[in-house]
Structure formats: structure tokens, C-alpha cells
């Protein structure tokens, strides 16, 4: 026992460097290579495509702003998925909780008046988290009590959420006019753009602050990532979450209620997905409508897997996928490649991250080769 304890840290340190960073990086590179082959065989120029993609996502402060804009909800849905994965739960229906979070904010932000910004905004963010958690509650209970697989139930709840929103925006919550959407939030309930926080002279002096449409939600997302990291690492809640994910039987024996931990984990996951809906409504659209999320809940799956479910790893993973989304338009415009290639690359990244064995097999073979050469 003591021996394994001594050898573990050294091994773990090596593994964490190779696997936590190396495999995700290699997966992205492989996905880009396979994506290029697909483009090339379809008659497009992959070099021109990726050049345009890069230009559209990181080419200047405005483009970086666009990337951060898309990364903001992705950090939050990525956290939602990662937190669930840590308890061995797959919240595939994060999109539905995101819709409910956005709906809560779009409704309360207009219905509640007279509160100062500093109270209104935190209240709305909290409301979105409660709405997201509430939407995950029934699947969570069903998982804990009868074992109904959360992949099916959260997915079904996600369809139900979308129909509820699409009913409300043509029915009770419809704004006056032709377009099916809710009334716009007042300024006092919005997350302002970063660049509006600085004066003209500051922006002239520091042009990199001119981040286009990026809004305060990015700060919310970064704080949330730190918060989840803290929960997982330093609190009993996080410890129980990880323990149940690692070995439910041992946890139960050790006095942790697996059922209760499952419910908490899926609801907390839902809360962060709900928060993603809030930042989209409060920072981008100021209202809710049918198509207000471009699949952020689903992209969150790829974000979490690429981050190996590490809450801080979620940040660069979200920026990568945010960049792909932000640059897709420029890519289609300049290289003519359909934007859907982004989905293909996203799927490939998930494949390669999940298929660690490819890399392990490769490493083993290299080691064997090295050995045989040495011999």
C-alpha cells in the first residue's frame, strides 16, 4: 500500500502532463488534419479555409471580441457538462436548461422594475441558475430513484423546453409587432459591452480593449470557472461529486449518499447551463426567441471532453470552439467552405479525445520500437 502511494504521484505527474494537455492538443491537430482532408476531397482549399477561419476569429481586436462573445456561453455549458461528467453523469440536454435559464431572465428582466443594476443583474443571474437547476431536477430524480438514463430524459426535456419557449414567444410573452420574440430588456438588466466601460481616450490608447460585442458575461463565465474549480478541489460537495463519479459503490460504503449526490450534481450542472442562457439574453440579444442559442448546449459536450472535465481547462477549450464558430462566417465568405465543416471538426475532436487508446497504442509502439532498437 505504502509503495503504491509513493510511486503514484510521480506517475500521475507524468500522466497529467502527457494526457491532460498532450492528448487534447493532439486530438485538435488530428481533427484539423482530417477536416482538411474532407475539405480537400470535397474540392475546397483547406489552407485558404483555415487562413480565413483564423482571420475571422483572431485577426484583430474586433475578431477576438467575436470569439470571446461565442466562448462566453461555451465556457458555462462546458462547465455544466464537466461538472456532470465528474459525477459520471452525461447532461446531454444542457441546451434545454440553457433555454429555461434564458427564459427566466427574459421574463423577470422585464417583469421586475425599479431595482438598481447592481442588484438586478445578480438577481437575474441567480434566477437563471435556479431555472436551469429546476429543469434538470426531474431527470435528476428519475436517475437517482429509478435509474432512468439521463441521456434520454435530459434530451427529452430539452425538446420540451424548446417547445415551451416557442409557444411563449408567439403567445403570452410575445412583444408587440410581427416578430415572435419577447420585449427587450431595459438597460438596467443588461450586461454591457466591455468597450462601453472605457472612455474614448482609453480605447484609443489601448486598442486591444476595443473588443466589439464582447460583454461582461465573459467575466461571469471566468468567475464561474474559478468557482467550479474551487468547489471540486476544496469542498466536501466537490469531493463527493468526484467520489461518486469515480466509484459509486465505494462511495456508498464510505457513507456518501449516491442518490443525493446524483441529484445535486445534475442540478448544479443544469444551473451553469441556465447561466449560459442568461449571458446570451442579457449580453447579446436582450430578449429570447426560438433560435437564440446556436447549439451552445451541445458544443459544451465537446468543450468539456476536450478540457478533460477540468474546470479551468474548459476556458481554452471554449475559446477554441468559440473561435471556430466566430471564424466560420469568414471562412464561408472567403474560401466558400460550408460552415457545417465546424460541426465535423467538433465531432472529430470528441472522437479523438475519447479514443485515447489510439495515442496510448502509438506511445506503446514507440516504446517497444525504442526497446528493440536498444536491444
Amino acid at each position, binding site marked *: 500500500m505504502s509503495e503504491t502511494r509513493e510511486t503514484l504521484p510521480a506517475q500521475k505527474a507524468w500522466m497529467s502532463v502527457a494526457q491532460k494537455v498532450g492528448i487534447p492538443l493532439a486530438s485538435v491537430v488530428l481533427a484539423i488534419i482530417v477536416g482538411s482532408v*474532407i475539405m480537400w476531397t*470535397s*474540392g475546397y482549399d483547406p489552407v485558404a479555409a483555415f487562413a480565413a477561419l483564423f482571420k475571422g476569429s483572431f485577426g484583430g481586436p474586433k475578431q477576438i471580441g467575436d470569439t470571446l462573445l461565442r466562448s462566453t456561453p461555451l465556457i458555462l455549458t462546458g462547465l455544466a457538462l464537466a461538472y456532470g461528467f465528474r459525477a459520471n453523469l*452525461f447532461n*446531454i440536454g444542457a441546451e434545454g436548461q440553457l433555454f429555461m435559464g434564458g427564459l427566466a431572465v427574459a421574463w423577470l428582466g422585464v417583469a421586475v422594475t425599479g431595482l438598481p443594476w447592481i442588484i438586478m443583474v445578480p438577481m437575474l443571474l441567480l434566477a437563471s441558475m435556479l431555472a436551469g437547476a429546476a429543469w434538470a431536477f*426531474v*431527470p435528476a430524480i*428519475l436517475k437517482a430513484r*429509478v*435509474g*432512468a*438514463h439521463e*441521456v*434520454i*430524459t435530459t*434530451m*427529452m*426535456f430539452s*425538446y*420540451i423546453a424548446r*417547445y*415551451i419557449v*416557442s*409557444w411563449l414567444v408567439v*403567445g403570452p410573452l410575445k412583444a408587440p409587432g410581427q416578430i415572435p420574440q419577447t420585449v427587450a430588456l431595459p438597460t438596467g438588466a443588461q450586461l454591457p459591452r466591455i468597450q462601453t466601460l472605457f472612455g474614448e481616450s482609453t480605447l484609443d490608447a489601448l486598442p486591444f480593449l476595443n473588443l466589439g460585442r464582447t460583454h461582461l458575461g465573459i467575466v461571469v463565465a471566468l468567475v464561474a470557472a474559478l468557482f467550479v474549480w474551487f468547489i471540486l478541489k476544496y469542498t466536501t460537495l466537490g469531493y463527493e461529486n468526484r467520489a461518486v463519479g469515480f466509484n459509486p459503490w465505494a462511495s456508498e460504503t464510505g457513507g456518501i449518499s449516491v442518490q443525493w449526490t446524483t441529484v445535486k450534481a445534475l442540478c448544479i450542472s443544469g444551473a451553469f447551463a441556465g447561466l449560459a442562457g442568461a449571458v446570451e439574453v442579457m449580453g447579446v440579444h436582450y430578449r429570447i426567441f426560438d433560435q437564440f442559442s446556436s447549439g451552445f448546449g*451541445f458544443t459544451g*459536450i*465537446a468543450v468539456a*471532453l476536450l478540457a478533460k472535465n477540468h474546470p479551468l481547462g474548459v476556458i481554452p477549450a471554449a475559446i477554441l470552439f468559440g473561435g471556430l464558430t466566430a471564424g466560420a462566417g469568414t471562412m464561408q465568405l472567403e474560401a466558400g467552405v*460550408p460552415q*457545417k*465543416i*465546424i*460541426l*465535423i*471538426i*467538433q*465531432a*472529430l475532436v*470528441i*472522437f479523438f479525445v*475519447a*479514443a*485515447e*487508446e*489510439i495515442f496510448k497504442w502509438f506511445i506503446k509502439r514507440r516504446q517497444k520500437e525504442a526497446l528493440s532498437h536498444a536491444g
Partner: protein
Amino acid sequence: MLGDIITPDLFASALRMATPLALAAIGGTICERSGVVNIALEGMMLVGAFFGTVITLATGNAWLGIIAAVVSGVAVSAIHAFASINLRSDQVVSGTAINILALGVTGFMMERLYGHPGTTDPTGTLGPVFKFAMSDDGFFGTIWNWINGIFLSHTPIVYMAIIIAIVAQWAMFRTRWGLHLRALGEHPRAVDTVGVSVIRGRWIAVLMSGGLAGLAGANLTLEQVGSFTENMTNGRGFIALAANIFGHWTPVGSYLASLLFGFADALQIKLQIFRGEINIPPQFFLMLPYVLTVVVLAGVIGRAVGPAAVGKPYEKE
């Protein structure tokens, strides 16, 4: 009004709506019985629906389209088989990747081939297999009209699904293949010990589920809708998985469970016609199959137990 709702047409529509769910659910049953979870049914169905349409548009022959749908479903399932059996990836994650890949590939190829996103040109739909005349003489005429309307008015894949359910049920419980398949999902080590390859057995099961999901997609485009629209499967793959559970992991059970979901779908379509009188927003009808899925799962699980080794990659010692 009840007489307007409960017509032969309603039950015929239930059979039609149940068909893609049933085919995918039977695929899911075979796959899970072998020990491999397949949440990629959704993506395989979508790919089948797409390539069925593409080939039909290119050749003008819907039967070639159906073959293309099955072949493309099998091809996509090979990726799932390789990832989850050979590379021992997490099967649910691999399935998710395939679902996203299917959305991406169909959308990408649609723009590449037709130059626009959204919906393809119409392919037309396959006609019914039988064409019997309606009768108008008295009591027996009415009975004949009901039988004719409900059972004899369908397109080929609807009948194929019924035959497949019965044949699969027989094969799963009465043949050597079925015995091995069920053992693969319960105790793969035992199967390995008697000299049957776990890898091979699971590969065949996954490929079969891909072919059935592809056929389900063909039914959707070539028999029901008559064109392909992006993401048109709309969660049917997930509902099919629920039907498989509700049917206790048996082909005929899966078919009957799909009939329930098909009936819910047929009923909501029918009720929408009476929207003026019922005065409930259409979105609530559209929700019905999804709500029913959750209710069914909540009620049935705990009493239905799946294969013991499902979801666990097999590693030879």
C-alpha cells in the same frame, strides 16, 4: 368530434409513425444485447435519410435510395463499432460524436451538392404496396374498410419493419446466433471462453443496428416526407432507445413500444386539425411524444433490467 378523431386513418398513421422508431429501436435492441450502447441511432438515421434522398434524386429510383440509406447507416455504424469495440472509447461519448458528425456531414454535403442549406428538392414518396377498393355494403363493408385502411394501405418499409421485428425476435431467442448475441451482453468472458469472438459478434450487432437505423431514415424521407431537411430526425433516435427499454430489450417488444409512441404522434397530428375547437397551442401537441417518453421511462425502469455487460468495453486477457 370523437368520431372524426378515431378513424381508420388515425391507426394507419400510428403504424406509419411507429415504423422509423421501431426499426431504430430493434437496431438498438440488437446492439445493446451485444453489450454496446448505441445513442448514435439518431445520427445513423439522419445519414440514412440523407443518402437515401441523394441517391433517389440522382437515379430517380427510390429502391436504390433505400439501399443507399442502409449502406450509409452501416458505414456510419462501423465508426461507432471501431471506436467502442476496438479502441474501447466511452460508448456514449462515441455515440454523441457520431450524432454531431451526422449533423455536420449531412449539412456540409447538402451545401456541397445542392448549393443551399435547409431542404432538398422533393423525391416524391413510394406508393402503397396494395391497392384494394373501399367497400360500401353495410356492416361487413365497414369492417373491410377499417382493415383495409389500417393494415393494407402502407408503403413497403412499414411491412418490412413488422417482418423484421418477428424475424429478429425468432433469431434472438431461437437460434445459435441469438444465444451468442445475448451472452455477449451478459457475460462476454464466457462467450470468449467457448471460442466465439466477442469483437466479431459485437461488430456484427453494431453494423446491423446501423443498417436498421439507415432503413428507418429511408422510411422517413422516401415514404413519409418526400424530401430531406437538416436535422429532420428530431430526437427519434433517442425515443427509439426509450422504446427499446420499454420493450424490455426484445424486438417485438420494441415494435409494440414504438406503436405507443407512434400512436401519440398520430394523435397529436390529428388533434392539431381540431385546434380551433380544442383551443390548446400546437406546441403542447408537439411536446406529447417527448413527455410520453419521459413518463414511460419513469414508470418502467427498475422493473426492466438491461443486459449486464452493456456499455462495458471488452478486453481480452
